[in-house]
C-alpha cells in the first residue's frame, strides 16, 4: 500500500483538536442539511397524501386551483358534462374546506380541514381506520378523525360529540397515521354533511374525481373533457400533486426556507473544513516541501491532501449518520417526521465528500505554490 493514506491519516490524527474541529464542522453541517432536507422530503410527501389516497384518473378542478387544500367551487354542471363524455364511468364530487371545530363541553375551538365525499363512493375516504368503519360515516353527524389528533380535538374516544361551525358532529371512526402537514387536523365526513358544515350549496363541489371505464382511452377522454369544460381544468393526479407541491413548497416559501438553510449548512460546513484543512496544511508545509524536494509529483501531494479531506469526510459523515438516525427515530411520530431515504443517505455522503473536496481547494492552492528550495531555509 502506498504511503499516501498513511501520511493523510497520520496528519489527520496527529492533531486531535483540529480533527475534532473538522468533524464538528462536518457533523454540524450534515445534520443540519439532513434535518432540512428530511423535513423537506417529509413535507413534500405529506402535502400530497390526500391526492395519493384518492381514486381518480382525472381531477376536474376550478381554474387556477393552486393546491388541494385551497380551491374555489365548481357549479356542478361540470359533473354532468363529464358524465356525458364517452369513457367516463364516474365523476365523484369532493368538498374540501376549512372550518372551526369546537371541542365538546364548551371547550375552545380549533380550525380543521373538512373533506367530504359521497359515502361508499371509493373516491376519497379516510384510510387506515382503526376504530369504527367507513359505513359509520353515513350515521347522522358522523365524522372520522385521526387518533393522533384526539387530544387536540378534545376527544377521548369515538362516539363523542363536538361542533363544526356550530353544527353537530360525532366522531364515529378513527384512523391512524393520517397526519396533516399543517397544524390543522383533517376531518372526513359525507358529502352532504361537508356541504352543510362548509356552507356549500347543493350540487356544488371543489373537485370532481373522474374515473374511467375499463378500456377507455385516457388521452381521448381527457381531450373531450377539456373541450367540454370551459371554466375548469382537467388534471391527472400527478399534475395535481405537482401543483400542490409547487404551491406549498415554493409559492409559500416554506420549501425555499428549508433548502436555504440546507445550503447555508453546506456553506458553513465547507468553510470550517476548509479552515482546518488549510491550517493543517500550513503546519505541514515543510513536509510537503520535502516531498517535493525528494521528487514527488504534484499529483502525489494533491492525493495526500485530498485523502486527508476525504478521510475527514468519512469520519464526519459516520458521526452525522448516527445522529441523523437518532433524529429520524425521535421524530417518527411528530407532525413532520424527518424522512431518511437510501437516496438521501447516499446523496448526503456524496455531498460530504464533495464538501470536503471543495474545502481542500485552498489547501491545495497553498501546496501547489510550494518551492522545494524551501527545505534549505533553516
Amino acid at each position, binding site marked *: *500500500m*502506498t*504511503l*499516501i493514506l*498513511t*501520511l493523510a491519516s*497520520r*496528519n489527520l490524527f*496527529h492533531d486531535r483538536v483540529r480533527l475534532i474541529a473538522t468533524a464538528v464542522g462536518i457533523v454540524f453541517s450534515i445534520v443540519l442539511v439532513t434535518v432540512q432536507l428530511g423535513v423537506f422530503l417529509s413535507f413534500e410527501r405529506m402535502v400530497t397524501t390526500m391526492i395519493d389516497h384518492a381514486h381518480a384518473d382525472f381531477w376536474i378542478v376550478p381554474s387556477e386551483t393552486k393546491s388541494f387544500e385551497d380551491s374555489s367551487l365548481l357549479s356542478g354542471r361540470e359533473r354532468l358534462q363529464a358524465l356525458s363524455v364517452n369513457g367516463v364511468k364516474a365523476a365523484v364530487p369532493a368538498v374540501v374546506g376549512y372550518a372551526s371545530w369546537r371541542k365538546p363541553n364548551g371547550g375552545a375551538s380549533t380550525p380543521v380541514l373538512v373533506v367530504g365525499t359521497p359515502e361508499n363512493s371509493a373516491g376519497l375516504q379516510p384510510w387506515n381506520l382503526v376504530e369504527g368503519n367507513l359505513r359509520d360515516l353515513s350515521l347522522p353527524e358522523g365524522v372520522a378523525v385521526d387518533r393522533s389528533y384526539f387530544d387536540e380535538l378534545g376527544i377521548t374516544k369515538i362516539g363523542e360529540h363536538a361542533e363544526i361551525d356550530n353544527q353537530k358532529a360525532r366522531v364515529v371512526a378513527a384512523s391512524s397515521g393520517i397526519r396533516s402537514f399543517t397544524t390543522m387536523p383533517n376531518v372526513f365526513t359525507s358529502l352532504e354533511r361537508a356541504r352543510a358544515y362548509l356552507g356549500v350549496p347543493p350540487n356544488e363541489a371543489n373537485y370532481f374525481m373522474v374515473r374511467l371505464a375499463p378500456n377507455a382511452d385516457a388521452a381521448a377522454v381527457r381531450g373531450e373533457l377539456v373541450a367540454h369544460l370551459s371554466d375548469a381544468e382537467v388534471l391527472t393526479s400527478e399534475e395535481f400533486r405537482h401543483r400542490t407541491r409547487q404551491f406549498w413548497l415554493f409559492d409559500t416559501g416554506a420549501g425555499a426556507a428549508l433548502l436555504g438553510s440546507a445550503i447555508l449548512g453546506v456553506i458553513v460546513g465547507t468553510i470550517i473544513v476548509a479552515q482546518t484543512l488549510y491550517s493543517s496544511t500550513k503546519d505541514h508545509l*515543510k*513536509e510537503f516541501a*520535502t*516531498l*517535493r*524536494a*525528494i*521528487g*514527488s*509529483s*504534484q499529483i*502525489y501531494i494533491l492525493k495526500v491532501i485530498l485523502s486527508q479531506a476525504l478521510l475527514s469526510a468519512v469520519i464526519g459523515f459516520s458521526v452525522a449518520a448516527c445522529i441523523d438516525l437518532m433524529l429520524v427515530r425521535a421524530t417518527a411520530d411528530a407532525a413532520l417526521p424527518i424522512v431518511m431515504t437510501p437516496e438521501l443517505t447516499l446523496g448526503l455522503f456524496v455531498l460530504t465528500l464533495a464538501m470536503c473536496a471543495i474545502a481542500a481547494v485552498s489547501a491545495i492552492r497553498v501546496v501547489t505554490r510550494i518551492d*522545494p*528550495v524551501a*527545505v*534549505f531555509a*533553516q
Partner: protein
Amino acid sequence: MTTTMIEATNIVKVLGEGPARVEALKSINLSLVGGELTLLMGPSGSGKTTLLSVLGCMLSPTGGTVEIRGRSTTGLDAEELAALRRDNVGFVFQSYHLFPTLTAAENVRLALDVRGGCSRMARIKAEKALATVGLSHKARAFPRELSGGEQQRVAVARAIVGDASVILADEPTAALDSENGHAVMMMLAEIAKDPTRALFIVTHDPRIMPFADRILRIEDGRIVSDQRGGGRTSPLRALKYAS
C-alpha cells in the same frame, strides 16, 4: 573507469530582483563522477546552497546547462524536474526533514513511494537501506524517538534507498555533535565508494575534510580552488574526526 553523473557548464544563477538582486553563481563549471566524495566549502553567502540546489534540479540556472547522467535539464518544467530528482538525486539536509508522523522505515520508503511501483519491493529496499546505516533495530521508531545522529542516518538511508546516482548533502553534520557527525560522515564516505554514486557535500566543517576525495572552494559565486586526492588517500584520514 569513472562515470560522469552531473555535468554543469557555465552556470549562472541570479536571485532576487531590483536592489535585492544577487548574482549568486557566476559561470561555474563542474562535473561530478561516480565513486567520489566532493566537498564544497566556502564562506557564508558564497553560493554553496544555491549551487547544490541547481545541481539537484531544485533551481533552474539563469544561464548555463546542467546534465544529469547525460540528460540535459534545460527547458524542463517543474514536474519534469521533480521526476528527474526522484529518479536520480538523493538529498540530505542539515535539519534532517524527516516526516514526524512516519516511522523510520516509512520515511525511507517514502523516497520510493513517490515513484509509485511495488510497495513490497519498497519495503524490502527500505529495510536494506536502514541496515546500511545501522538502524535496522529502529525501523519502527518515530523521529522524535531517535537522536539527532540517528535521524540524520535515517535521512541518509532515504537518500540512498532509490539508488540515486547523485547524493547531495547540505551541511549534514552541522546540527550534530562531533561523535554523531563522525558516524554520519563515515557512512557517507562508505556510500561514496560505490562507483555508481557521486556524493556532493556542502559544509563549513573542517573536520569533514579528511573524508573527501575532492575539495572545492567557492567564494562570491565562483569556484576558486579544486583539489583532488587530498582526502581519503591522505594520512589525515586516519586521524580522529573530533579534534
